[in-house]
């Protein structure tokens, strides 16, 4: 025999050059990382907005409970203070809600839309992979035929094989080129896409906190007449607690 039907042990000839593979992998990896990032960020943002709303509701509860306490009926000053507090908390809640809505619109929804492109990308990569496999297979088949003696039927077979190979090869190359072209574009698009979101996110936060500061400054002016510092208040509280402890009706074991 002057030919070996199949050569076990010899490495397969590379159908697709290493550089092409490497380029492809690099771009693909970048996009995979981007996919993970966007998915995670989307989830986290949803979580944080929910927690944000819960926090705000807790704050409103503080003031609502105090306002509904019978103490307010007996003491006008207390009633006034609690009303002011309650108003402030409710405003805080409203602003928070608005902030959350804003974020939802400008950040969370766009994130979702952007993420929706990834499945298509993944599918395209898979198809390219399939096409690559087909290509490799047919290519090796052609090579096998090429190494045989050129008899009539062999040549026919070779032609047939070549015919079969051609469209598959073209298909793969088309897919490959297409993806190599488009993946970087996709990756790059993220900057322009998310820049406005990022700015909107920061803006929403800054606006919210500025407003909050104003609200609470106003509130402090309204209810804090004595204007003590925290330390002074703490001392006063401690003194009162001691006074209570000295009362005989308070158990002092």
């Amino acid at each position, binding site marked *: 025999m002057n030919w070996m039907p199949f050569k076990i042990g010899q490495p397969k000839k590379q159908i697709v050059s290493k550089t092409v593979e490497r380029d492809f992998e690099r771009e693909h990896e970048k996009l995979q990382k981007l996919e993970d*990032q966007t998915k995670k960020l989307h989830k986290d943002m949803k979580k944080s907005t929910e927690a944000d709303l819960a926090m705000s509701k807790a704050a409103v509860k503080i003031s609502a409970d105090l306002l509904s306490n019978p103490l307010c009926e007996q003491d006008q000053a207390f009633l006034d*203070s609690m009303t002011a507090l309650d108003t402030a908390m409710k405003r805080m809640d409203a602003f928070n809600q608005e902030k959350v809505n804003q974020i939802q619109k400008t950040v969370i929804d766009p994130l979702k839309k952007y993420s929706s492109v990834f499945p298509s990308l993944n599918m395209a990569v898979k198809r390219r992979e399939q096409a690559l496999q087909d290509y490799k297979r047919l290519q090796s088949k052609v090579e096998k035929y090429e190494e045989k003696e050129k008899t009539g*039927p062999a040549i026919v077979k070779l032609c047939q094989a070549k015919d079969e190979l051609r469209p598959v090869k073209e298909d793969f190359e088309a897919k490959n080129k297409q993806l190599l072209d488009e993946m970087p574009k*996709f990756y790059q*698009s993220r900057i322009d896409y998310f820049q406005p979101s*990022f700015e909107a996110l920061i803006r929403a936060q800054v606006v919210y906190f500025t407003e909050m500061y104003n609200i609470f400054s106003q509130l402090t002016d309204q209810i804090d007449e004595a204007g003590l510092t925290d330390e002074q208040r703490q001392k006063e509280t401690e003194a009162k607690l001691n006074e209570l402890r000295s009362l005989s009706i*308070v158990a002092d074991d």
Partner: protein
Amino acid sequence: MPLDLSALPSPVLDVEEIWSRKMSRRAKVIKELVQTEKDYLTDLELCIREVVQPLRVLQVVDVDRLFTNMETVCEVSAALLNRLHVAMSDPDPEAVVIGEVFIQAKAALEDVYKIYCYHHDDANMSLKAYEKEEQIKQHFTICILALKKIYDQEGKPNLLDMGSLLIKPVQRIMKYPLLLGELWQATPEDHIDYLPLQEALTAAKIINVNINEFRRRKDIVMKYKRLENDEGTLRGKLNKINIHSLRKKGDRFAGYLKILTGVEPQVRDEVFDKEEKLFRSLEKAVRQLAKNVNCYVQYTQEMVPVAVQNVKDMENIITDPSKADTNGSSHKNGKDPYKYFKERMEELVLLPLTSLQGMFTAPQKLIQKRYDKLLDYCCRLERSSSFASSSSTTVSSTASPASDAPPGPAKRDYEAINALLVDELQRFNMAAYTILTNCVLCLVALLRGLMVCALVGAPAVHQLPPPLSNMVEVQNSIMDELNNLTFVKDNAQKLMERKVSFERQRDKKTVVQEVQHQTEEQRAWLLAEYPPNRLYQLKRKCNGCQEQDLSLLEGELVALLEDTDPLGSSSRWLVHNGGDKGYVYSTFLKQYNPLRDSQRANQKAKEQQQPPVITYEDFDDLSLFVSPSSSSMRSLSLNTTDSSSTLSGLQGELENAEEPEESVDDDTQQYYAVYAFHARCEQELSLQEYQHVRILQFCDLGGNKQWWLAEANGQKGYVPANYLGRMSYA
């Protein structure tokens, strides 16, 4: 007998005599008063000098606990003595006014002695405890002996011990009413000191009453606290049960019912009620505030790290690792302001609130006790009033003695507790209110501080880039661009349709697409119409998803009409399956090799008998190079065709071919039954173990490859394929 006129004192002389006797007595009493005060003061001073101060230096006992405010008592006494001396210095006895001295001193006296007497019981108890320790007892003895020596030197031997030292002030304050009373009685009515003395006497009595009351309150609280501790155990509770307590409880219960049904209790204290209501409101407010603030802080803790991370993550998405993207980023200082916020909140708000909350329980119990006592009292009142009313109808004058006794203790108890509570609740409420408002103010201040911190490092609102008003359009246009990328266009639709069809499948599971089998005529037509190189075969089953797709079964023939689809994709081909035209993805197709089918069948047949023949046709089938009986290579041969082809697939091909097998040797189709099989119906064929059968078809009429049509002993029938084994000829 005639009256002895000389025995009768003359009226004028009597008045004078009385007056002078009184005055001399008065002088004596004053002298005694002053002298005793002086002695008392000396005793105090010596005690302080010889006992208190040395013990204080030694630091082995809690001096304040033992001696309370003896030093202050000493000071007050000294001042009093001074004033007495001043009052006495007037040479005219008729101008001496002692009463004033005491009237002026009464406040100071009450304050100082109230404290001393209040703590005296405690002091005694500590003393007893201390005396159990040898070492401390030694110290006491030393001091006492020193004191004794001094007294002995002065010629005033006294029986001294620590206990008698401690009780001196108590004894003194109780003496004042007696002394003052005596002095008052010794004072003639028209003396200028008469009225002041009267007032002083009253004052001294009141001081003592107050001191007692003050002590009594403490006793009450102690008593109920002690009872609670005892009652706590089940044993304690059982011990309490006796006729008396049962009766008491029964009465109380009746009282509660009366209240519930709207009958007003006879005794009300409006002041108390108001304070109690305030007390309850405060308790609720404190409790709720503590809970809510806690909740709020917790949520803040949960949310903040996530929010901060989000901003960072977003930034990461945009930045390119190779070049830094500057964007006024990370405006939040992150966790630190929030951590500080939490700590301060806990310190300034939560801690005091929880301490305060704890203090509500003891008063609440006392309030409950008071309520019980009130009911008892009301009960007694009712009983006594009904008794009195009933007794008034029967016995007129003599009031039944029983009617007086019962209200006594109940009334006393109730009034004691009530007075205590009214006084102290007021103070409690005021202090609690202050604490509450302070906490609220701290809360607000902290929140404001937090907002300030969050803004540190952030640009002011007007400094920020203005919001992109057309942000939505910008993003949408980018999305459109993305969607126009080929890979999206190609696949998105398919994904969408896959999703839709999946959903449709889920909804209507009953609809099963019946795929038409290709008929023989269609195959024949295709073979006739198209050249072999345009003919393709399905490698595997293809389900058409898109509109013009064909659904085809494995092995079916199609003729290629176009090798691109209207959209220009070269992976989708327009084919003709003899009946319809439609699109199929090229990956499903392979070139049709008409020879291969029959040859393969032949090969399979000859496999067992002939030595491997090298043919050029079938490189895919590596079984050529393999010994017949090796099943592993057989599986390898299968793998080199298509990944999705299976054994049954091959057999399907066998079946799809024009079934040349029938012309082949019978031997080649020889199978045998590995296990016996019992036919369950007409169509099935019973077999005995190791019975030879001949296979006519490798599937049933429905295409199910699990049942083979077999012939044995002239009978035909279906047999399960896995019961059959191939006969191998050596």
